[in-house]
């Protein structure tokens, strides 16, 4: 009984923190939308942003808890549109196209990867299955808060169901022994056959209307593809080579599905085509080209090439965690600046542009009144190697604090950092302290 009471108390704490009004004053605020604010004020209420502005013209509500953050920088929580944290696997090796498989059913919400991502300032993630399939299943958009179940983290579609996209891939990763394709031509043919079947299924559903007796029997795979055809689910498409990029654009046009290009190693060769198609790009930045044949022309200048051709709103970055480390997500954008991208687009590429690629830009990605109070507190310029992420806030609750030894363990590593978060959720059975 005592234990139960204790547990209840613990879980209640974040909720009360959400409810009170908090004012963060004195920091340099980078709202992403709108000009930079020196000596800014950020007001948080009920987990949302109530006001963001200059100290001179942003009144602090009576009773608000005030935090002085002079010398610090505040910007929106980072949005990672391509992550593999949570140790989940979607599709298995039985078939190359598995739209019925959901990452919702596969992710470990207590995996330490989420804690590391918090230390990296990532407040929203699109967790996906791998690229070993033409279509490896439904992705899941997650709020990166400390949760006991995956449902607590999942964003919801307007109908209340867990929100996500659909992961697809082309190129060599998804090649294999039958039933997997052996060539690029076969890959595209398989994808087209499946989408044509989905169009047929969609037509039958439409014709049946409200008459349940006329509806085709339920088919989870085709239902998933219909959600893609309807534009509810965005396709997140792994693609590297210039010709594979072109294939994705061709298929997207044929079937009318919405697509975000992921990795896009050779985007710098295809910038005109990508911008003409208005295809958003979620770019990966790797320290060295190569490592696999499709990435030998990978170049951090892709972002700059897209920007120069008028595609600045199409540019975002991702970690592909564990390919790159979520704790160093800011670095990806900084290296793109090194390769010629503007600072403004680099920061948008970590926030609002990535949020748009997840249909979440009305809720997150910038510091504007009404949006979720997801933000990070930095020791300095977000694009400097010397800057540390000091705090990460999700919906008005601090989920990462560099001063807290437990959080510091996730941020820097150390003895026990490889364990998952189990037990660390609350005050009971804290394994970190046992070690």
């Amino acid at each position, binding site marked *: 009984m005592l234990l139960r009471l204790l547990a209840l108390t613990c879980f209640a704490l974040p909720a009360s923190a959400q409810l009170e009004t908090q004012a963060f004053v004195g920091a340099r605020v980078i709202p992403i939308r709108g000009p930079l604010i020196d000596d800014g004020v950020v007001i948080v209420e009920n987990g949302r942003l109530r006001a963001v502005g200059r100290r001179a013209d942003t009144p602090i509500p009576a009773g608000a808890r005030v935090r002085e953050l002079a010398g610090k920088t505040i910007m929106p929580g980072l949005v990672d549109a391509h992550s593999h944290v949570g140790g989940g696997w979607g599709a298995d090796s039985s078939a190359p196209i598995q739209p019925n498989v959901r990452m919702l059913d596969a992710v470990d919400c207590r995996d330490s990867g989420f804690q590391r991502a918090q230390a990296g300032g990532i407040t929203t993630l699109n967790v996906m299955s791998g690229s070993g399939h033409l279509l490896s299943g439904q992705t899941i958009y997650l709020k990166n808060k400390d949760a006991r179940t995956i449902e607590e983290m999942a964003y919801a579609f307007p109908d209340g169901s867990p929100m996500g996209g659909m992961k697809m891939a082309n190129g060599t990763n998804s090649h294999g022994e039958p039933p997997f394709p052996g060539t690029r031509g076969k890959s595209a043919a398989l994808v087209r056959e499946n989408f044509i079947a989905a169009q047929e299924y969609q037509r039958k559903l439409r014709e049946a209307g409200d008459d349940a007796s006329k509806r085709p029997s339920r088919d989870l795979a085709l239902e998933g593809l219909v959600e893609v055809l309807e534009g509810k689910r965005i396709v997140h498409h792994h693609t590297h080579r210039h010709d594979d990029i072109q294939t994705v654009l061709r298929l997207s046009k044929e079937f009318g599905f919405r697509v975000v290009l992921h990795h896009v190693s050779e985007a710098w060769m295809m910038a005109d085509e990508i911008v003409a198609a208005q295809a958003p790009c979620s770019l990966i930045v*790797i*320290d*060295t*080209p*190569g*490592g*696999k*044949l499709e*990435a*030998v022309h990978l170049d951090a200048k892709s972002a700059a090439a897209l920007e120069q051709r008028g595609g600045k709103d199409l540019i975002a970055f991702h970690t592909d965690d*564990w*390919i790159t*480390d979520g704790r*160093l997500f800011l*670095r990806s954008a*900084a*290296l793109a*600046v*090194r390769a010629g991208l503007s600072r403004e687009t680099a920061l948008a590429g970590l926030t609002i542009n990535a949020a748009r690629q997840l249909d979440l830009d009305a809720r997150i990605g910038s510091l504007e009144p009404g949006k979720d109070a997801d933000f990070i507190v930095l020791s300095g310029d977000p*694009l*400097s*190697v*010397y*800057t*540390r992420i000091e705090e990460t806030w999700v919906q008005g609750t601090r989920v990462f604090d560099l001063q807290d030894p437990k959080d510091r363990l996730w941020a*820097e*590593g*150390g*003895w*026990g*950092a*490889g364990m998952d978060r189990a037990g660390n959720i609350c005050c009971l059975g804290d394994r970190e302290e046992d070690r």
Partner: protein
Amino acid sequence: MRALAIACLSLLCASAQAQDLAVRAERLHTVAGPVITDGVVLIRAGKIAAVGPADQVRVPDGVRVWKTKLATPGLIDAHSVIGLAGYLNQPHDQDQLDKNGPIQPELRAIDAYNPREKLVEWVRDFGITTVHTGHGPGALISGQTMIVKTRGQTVEESVLVPYAMLACTLGAESRGAKSPGTAGKQLAMLREALLSANEFRTKLEDPDPAKRPGRDLRKEAWVEVLARRVPLLVTAHRHQDLIAALRLAREFNLRVILDGAGEVYQVLDEVRAAGVFVIAHPPMARFAGELENASRSTPLRMLEAGIPFAFQSGHEDYVPKTRVVLYEAAIASAYGLGSEQALRAITIDAAKLLGIEQRVGSLEVGKDGDLALYDGDLFEYTSHCVGTVIEGKIVFEGLR
């Protein structure tokens, strides 16, 4: 006769010009002393002829003066596999590991190094002029390593030290279904190989030539280690494997260098007492497998404990196929080590660890004219390497 004289003269001029250069930097990091504001390094015939403030170093007429914001000694990557491992990551360009035997000390790096490999050019363009590369982690003894300059069309033009270290791996990475399958077996196999090589070494010194043994490439490679002319490079991460390496070094009086050493912060006293160098894992290496407990504050803790260390790009199976030691040092710098120590760890401290500090690692008169030029703080994400110089020759000029 006159034609010959002209030919000689032009040859002399050409070679002199090719390796004469002055670099003038707003901030000159010699690493041998304080940072010089508006400093000049003068290189004549490939060697550093003068270093100092611009108003104190006279640059001869005709020598190019290359101006830049910041210059450092050419950077040193204390452990890599580039040149043996290529960027395509296909079987034909992966020569860092032969999996046909657990102990193969006879494999020479010079027979496997490709100086034209793209990854060599890649790291060179970040200011890295010296690399300790060779057979990689993954076998109990995978083979020999070497030290190269990042120049040359043949290995002979690149090599600085042909047999630098003997590469040993402890821990899960060199265990498998076949023997060695356990940590105990790994050490038993190493001890037997060393005992056998020691016997060979004793017989080699027999006063009666007839009693000396015939050639044995494996044992000859071990003899260099037993004679302390070549260190044993032990790649290991778990604390117990690091301690096992020190135990082995004591038993056979070996020079050991610890490599990777993810959990070294658990055994700092023992490592310091043993007086060994550590080549720290890349701070951005994936914290997985035996690196699951790795920490970005390890370099700082080694510094505080008085353990000498350097940084490496390491070995990667996938992407990035190589890391960039400049980037790795940058992260360590930002996680508490500080810029000055981070720079030392990829210049003079790395040179000392590799035993080449008479040639490289700092900007001092008489040392090789190896420099790296930057357009700002070299560790900042958004700065660029603008030039790389090896022995007075410009091997990279651009914006990286």
